[in-house]
């Protein structure tokens, strides 16, 4: 009998070219995504060394972080953003890298377009100069964010030098309640283990809840792995995974696909394999979540009160600083808090399923007058689906407008900035101070909670609107 092995070990070990004693592994990267913000200095470094890109066909470029979400047919107004977008286009052309720039029909957020075009496959290693690269782990890939020095490394050598992380398994068993969606699962786990609870670990998500979850949902949860400090998270590939990928433009076709299926089916944690940390949660304990503080671990059930500092692992001073920034106090109820903005989008919740969920609540209702809503699809493909499924009509009738794809207000590098002091219910991934604009106050939540807030103008339990 071979030693039982974890999914993570199987994929990791298959990519180690050399192990350095008392050092990192020389780790081979199958797919590399680049965008306009973290790649320019890497290309400068490459030029400085006079080194070529070793495998240009393994790198894919898309513009997303600072792109406008209105009038994308016009020249980009901000000269600094335009300069980065030009640099991405120029560098991609120079080194023969596939480039989906602004206006390209496949353009969109890197972690949305990779999977939807079949670039992401089970068993791969995938990196990008963006911490939410963990998204691709939903397919049973090892995927994680890297810095710009490592972007240069991958361009030059298709490898990085990476110490192997420890292993954590997070199982969620049972059935999720009404109105509880994958984003709630992620926010709940982070609220339980804190924003640094998985630092140093790579997570495998297991149990009933993930087995029955859609690929969009798995992507949402894996995406948020970094928000608990984990480098990445993964879900073992299964029929849901293969059904999602089969026939996608850049996925292997025909015989090439068939040959890979047995390998992909072997990618699961063997019975008896062990983890450094193994924890289990009960799905029934999870309710729709919302955050009240300035890191993603500061979240709770939407019907709950803001915890007291005494209940927090973090020091009192940091906790009070956080609540002061938010303009909240201990023991206040979250329900009924007035909000100003709603942001539906990002690599966390900018996929078709998220727009379906949002539409399911706003259908037949009206956007609250006090709310400004920014609805930003993750890609042009998502945008087309929204139109094809009639969701756009539902949104329009309820007083909402759709913007064009990009990272948008998630990190507010473009014009989509939440004004200082304003409250935004956001489906994105980070509620850090100033993340959505200087002084902006972010409440992270699911598309359902965002939709309920959008029609009432206050924090609302979405279950009130569900039958």
């Amino acid at each position: 009998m071979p030693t039982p092995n974890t999914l993570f070990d199987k994929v990791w070990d298959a990519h180690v070219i050399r192990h350095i004693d008392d050092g990192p592994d020389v780790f081979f990267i199958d797919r590399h995504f680049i965008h306009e913000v973290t790649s320019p200095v890497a290309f400068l470094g490459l030029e400085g060394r006079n080194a070529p890109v070793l495998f240009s066909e393994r790198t894919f470029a898309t513009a997303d972080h600072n792109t406008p979400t209105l009038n994308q047919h016009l020249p980009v107004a901000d000269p600094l953003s335009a300069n980065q977008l030009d640099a991405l286009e120029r560098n991609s052309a120079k080194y023969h890298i596939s480039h989906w720039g602004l206006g390209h029909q496949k353009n969109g957020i890197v972690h949305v377009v990779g999977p939807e075009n079949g670039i992401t496959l089970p068993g791969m290693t995938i990196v990008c100069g963006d911490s939410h690269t963990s998204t691709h782990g939903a397919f049973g890939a090892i995927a994680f964010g890297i810095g710009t020095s490592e972007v240069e490394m991958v361009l030059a050598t298709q490898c990085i030098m990476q110490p192997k992380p420890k292993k954590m398994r997070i199982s969620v068993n049972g059935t999720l309640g009404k109105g509880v969606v994958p984003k709630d699962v992620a926010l709940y786990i982070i609220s339980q283990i804190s924003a640094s609870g998985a630092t140093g670990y790579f997570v495998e998500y297991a149990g009933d809840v993930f087995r029955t979850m859609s690929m969009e949902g798995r992507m949402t949860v894996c995406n948020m792995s970094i928000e608990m400090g984990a480098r990445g998270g993964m879900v073992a590939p299964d029929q849901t995974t293969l059904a999602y990928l089969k026939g996608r433009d850049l996925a292997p076709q025909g015989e090439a696909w068939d040959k890979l299926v047995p390998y992909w089916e072997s990618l699961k944690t063997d019975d008896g394999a062990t983890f450094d940390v193994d924890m289990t949660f009960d799905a029934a304990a999870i309710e729709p979540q919302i955050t009240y503080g300035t890191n993603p671990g500061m979240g709770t059930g939407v019907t709950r009160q803001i915890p007291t500092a005494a209940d927090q692992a973090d020091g009192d001073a940091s906790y009070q600083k956080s609540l002061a920034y938010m303009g909240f106090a201990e023991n206040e109820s979250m329900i009924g808090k007035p909000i100003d903005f709603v942001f539906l989008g990002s690599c966390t919740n900018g996929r078709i399923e998220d727009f379906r969920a949002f539409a399911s609540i706003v259908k037949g209702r009206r956007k609250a007058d006090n709310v400004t809503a920014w609805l930003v699809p993750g890609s042009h493909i998502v945008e087309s689906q929204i139109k094809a499924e009639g969701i756009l009509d539902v949104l329009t009738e309820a007083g909402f407008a759709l913007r064009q794809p990009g990272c948008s207000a998630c990190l507010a590098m473009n014009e989509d900035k939440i004004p200082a002091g304003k409250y935004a219910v956001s489906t994105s991934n980070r509620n850090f101070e100033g993340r959505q604009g200087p002084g902006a106050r972010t409440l992270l939540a699911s598309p359902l909670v965002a939709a309920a807030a959008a029609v009432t103008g206050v924090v609302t339990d979405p279950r009130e609107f569900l039958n």
Partner: protein
Amino acid sequence: MAYDNFTILRSTAVPMPIENVDTDQIIPARFLKATERKGFGDNLFRDWRYNTDGSPKADFVLNDPTYSGKILVGGKNFGSGSSREHAAWAIYDYGFRCVVSSFFADIFKGNSLNIGILPVQVSPEFLERIFAAIEADPATELEVNLPEQTITLLTTGESETFAINGYKKNNLLNGYDDIDYLLSMKDEIVQFADARPF
């Protein structure tokens, strides 16, 4: 990009006893629009350091002339969030060569090592001792000794060892970077790539 090698650093330190300092605080996203690596130190901790009109916030530690030095001491879970290497560039460009905390986020730690900043992880107790010592006397000097892997409060002689893998230590001591190493094994990499199923 080449960096100054790191051996033994003796310096006063700047205390920032705040937990979960994320990379959006270290450098907000709107300052990531350069296509060259220069000038990031000007925007280090931008929104904690300056008012919206650009005037310095008097109560922020980097604006307090009492504190200076090449060592930044932060609360636990330092550098969480975004993978932006710009955060490490900003810290380096400002003049810090070492960051001390009781716990670092993974990506920030890796980025720091790759550009020549030494992240020193100490015990929570020792971190408290450092904060207390600096509060008592801002002229308190720390010695960070990479060859010996020790960090010492020079006023009292209290000392702790810290971990770093041998490979990265050697890189920092000599100013080497990973790409030189990887390029030296290019043939092996190409052979490996040829055998990949995708």
